[in-house]
């Protein structure tokens, strides 16, 4: 609509890139170096377990934010239901941890005893095997995303409609998981994981290992997604975000593109969920609350959407502040968060990265804006 969109630089250089394209993104390189530094600190300095655990959790949130940024920042599809995929990963991981503990200790998990069952239900079979559990988490998340995405994108559900419907989806999942009859622990969820690969949970080695794994996964996700968005597909994604109709008119199918990225994003979120659960020691339907899914969008918006590094910065900054202020200034935290969001939304349109390329988005206005 406004001519500004055309004159502003695109976040990604329009020219085709060499294979090591991500090296041309200093922000990303900086973040990767920081991740490396964090790993070295964890191994070399052996900080307090609390700090180690916090770093690990922040890395997980960063992965989650990157997964949303991929679909929101680069395709213009805001999912308010990403908590669902995060939860799928988390629940499958918790199931693995519990069945692992069950086979090692012979003590049935809390909720199994409480539901009056003798042993784990049949669909838990094989979850003791960690690679299978990881595969299941990704596959399940991808499958759910595929079904939902296929139905939505085919009927051209776009913009705010997609957001609202995805929010309803995560809300339904929350209601379902709150029911005890659904299994999986109801409101209490699953907790009390004693072992990880046979090592006692909470020991310094396990905590450090988990944090390192999370940082490693974050680095891998960043490199992988960067390679994706910097390439041919990335340009198609931006084109689709900026004017889907034009892209279609030019003969490019967008449904498959959107569906593929959507599923990928869901699987990355599930990976975050897998890494999250052993670090916090609990999974329950709270992660399916619509609020949490909105919060993910808030991290991305604060960090700067449409830049993978921005998502990382947003997730880390907001969550670090939250951990700190929930304890230090509990009364002030909600005000600070809402103030932060408003400042970012009004004054820093592209988040903490003052990067002006996304100031206008014609597509959204057309399809979701009602004008």
């Amino acid at each position, binding site marked *: 609509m406004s001519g500004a969109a055309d004159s502003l630089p695109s976040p990604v250089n329009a020219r085709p890139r060499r294979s090591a394209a991500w090296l041309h993104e200093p*922000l990303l390189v*900086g973040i990767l170096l920081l991740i490396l530094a964090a790993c070295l600190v964890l191994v070399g300095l052996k900080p307090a377990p*609390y700090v180690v655990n916090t770093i690990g959790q922040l890395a997980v949130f960063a992965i989650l934010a990157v997964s949303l940024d991929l679909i929101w920042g680069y395709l213009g599809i805001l999912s308010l239901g990403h908590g669902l995929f995060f939860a799928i990963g988390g629940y499958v991981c918790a199931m693995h941890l519990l069945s692992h503990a069950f086979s090692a200790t012979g003590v049935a998990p809390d909720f199994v005893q409480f539901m009056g069952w003798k042993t784990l239900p049949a669909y838990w079979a094989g979850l003791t095997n960690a690679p299978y559990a990881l595969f299941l988490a990704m596959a399940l998340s991808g499958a759910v995303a595929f079904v939902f995405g296929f139905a939505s994108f085919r009927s051209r559900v776009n913009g705010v409609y997609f957001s609202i419907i995805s929010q309803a989806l995560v809300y339904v999942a929350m*209601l379902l998981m709150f029911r005890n009859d659904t299994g999986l622990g109801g409101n209490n969820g699953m907790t009390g994981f004693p072992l990880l690969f046979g090592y006692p949970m909470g020991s310094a080695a396990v905590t450090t290992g988990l944090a390192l794994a999370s940082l490693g996964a974050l680095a891998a996700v960043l490199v992988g997604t960067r390679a994706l968005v910097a390439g041919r597909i990335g340009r198609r994604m931006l084109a689709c975000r900026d004017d889907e109709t034009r892209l279609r008119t030019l003969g490019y199918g967008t449904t498959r593109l959107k569906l593929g990225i959507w599923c990928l994003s869901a699987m990355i979120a599930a990976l975050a969920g897998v890494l999250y659960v052993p670090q916090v020691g609990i999974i329950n339907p*709270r992660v399916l609350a619509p609020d949490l899914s909105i919060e993910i969008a808030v991290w991305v918006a604060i960090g700067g959407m449409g830049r993978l590094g921005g998502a990382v910065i947003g997730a880390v900054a907001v969550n670090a*502040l939250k951990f700190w202020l929930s304890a*230090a200034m*509990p*009364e002030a935290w909600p005000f600070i968060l809402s103030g932060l969001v408003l400042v970012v939304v009004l004054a820093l349109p592209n988040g903490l990265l003052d990067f002006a390329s996304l100031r206008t988005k014609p597509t959204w206005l057309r399809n979701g804006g009602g004008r």
Partner: protein
Amino acid sequence: MGPMAEFTRRGLIGTAAALAAPALIRPAWAAETVKLGCLFSSSGTMANIEGRLNYVVRMAADQLNAKGGVNGRQVEVVTSDPASDWPLYAQIGRQMLQQEKVAALFGCWTSVSRKSVLPVVEQNDGLLFYPLHFEGEENSKNVVYVNSPPASSVLPAVDYLMGSEGVSAKRFFMIGSDYVWPRTINKILKGYWASKGIAESAWREEYVPLGFSNFQTLVNQIRTFAAQPGGQPIVVLTVVGSSIPDFLREFANQGILATDVPILGLDMVEADLEGLDTTKLIGHLNCWAYLQAAKGERNAAFLSDWAAYVKAKNVPFSADTVIDPMVSAYDSVQLWALAAAKAKSFAVPEVRKAFAGLSYEGPSGYTLTMTGENNYVSRGIFIGSVNEKRGFDVLWQSPDAPKPVPFSPYG
């Protein structure tokens, strides 16, 4: 691009510094004080009731400090806001134990928040004082279960209703929020009734989601259930939070009196009646280890202390509403102080050893005792009856404090 990346890096370093900051906030007097941590939400779904407990713990600490502190050290209370977000309880609990080095944690209302913190206190050998009555079936050496498990608190109230002094109840409509506490309570009750030879057709069980408010259909069903033959029906209510007043309002509006179908509201406290017209609810029952109407000087002193504290500190809660978990949280601090004084140490293993044989006279009027067997506390039992002033009258109270039974024989 260059300056941008610089900015970002600085931002991250700043964040890292912020992370380390909690430990640096109060370095000067950390040496002379002993810290207690609170894990009670002042925002989110639990805020209305849980938020009060932060202030009670502070008040108890102030009173200890006024008497010279514990083991010669002043008590400092560190509060937080886990925002009714269960994983955040674990996160903040970890922070309090590892960074703030608190001597004990006081916290959690719902079972799920306790379950969330449980691995944290176990891994760090911390001590969590849990002030709520709950489903039992748990016995960790790192948790002090200050309130009663169901076998020693709920069953006496049900017995009362089934007896001739109550309503000779024969049939039971159980309605609860769908989570572990109501389900466990109902499971225990069903086992108990079955052991008394009551047929399964005499009860019905319904669950609603947490925060559910539209009780029209369920109250209709209760009326239909009540009209069926087979003897006096009662409602065993285990919904929690905002569902309680919403249920009571609909129940009264449909014209059912306590003398028709009494409600035994197991999680119902004075605070739940705050927004209601209770004249049509008179006679419904609850049961707790403390009621505001408990007789005795210690309770009178507690009530006036609380009222004065609310006024002095401008606490955003009612000065004249006191509920069991508040008193239990207060008792928790006192029990901890007694144990720490007895152990002459703040180290958790020493304090835990000192629990055996501890006794303390609480506001409830009973002598709270602990044994070396487990971390449960013996409490008295009250059955309260809703009165017209949005409170409870004491209808019955146990002659002494029965020994707690962590694992129910009826499960």
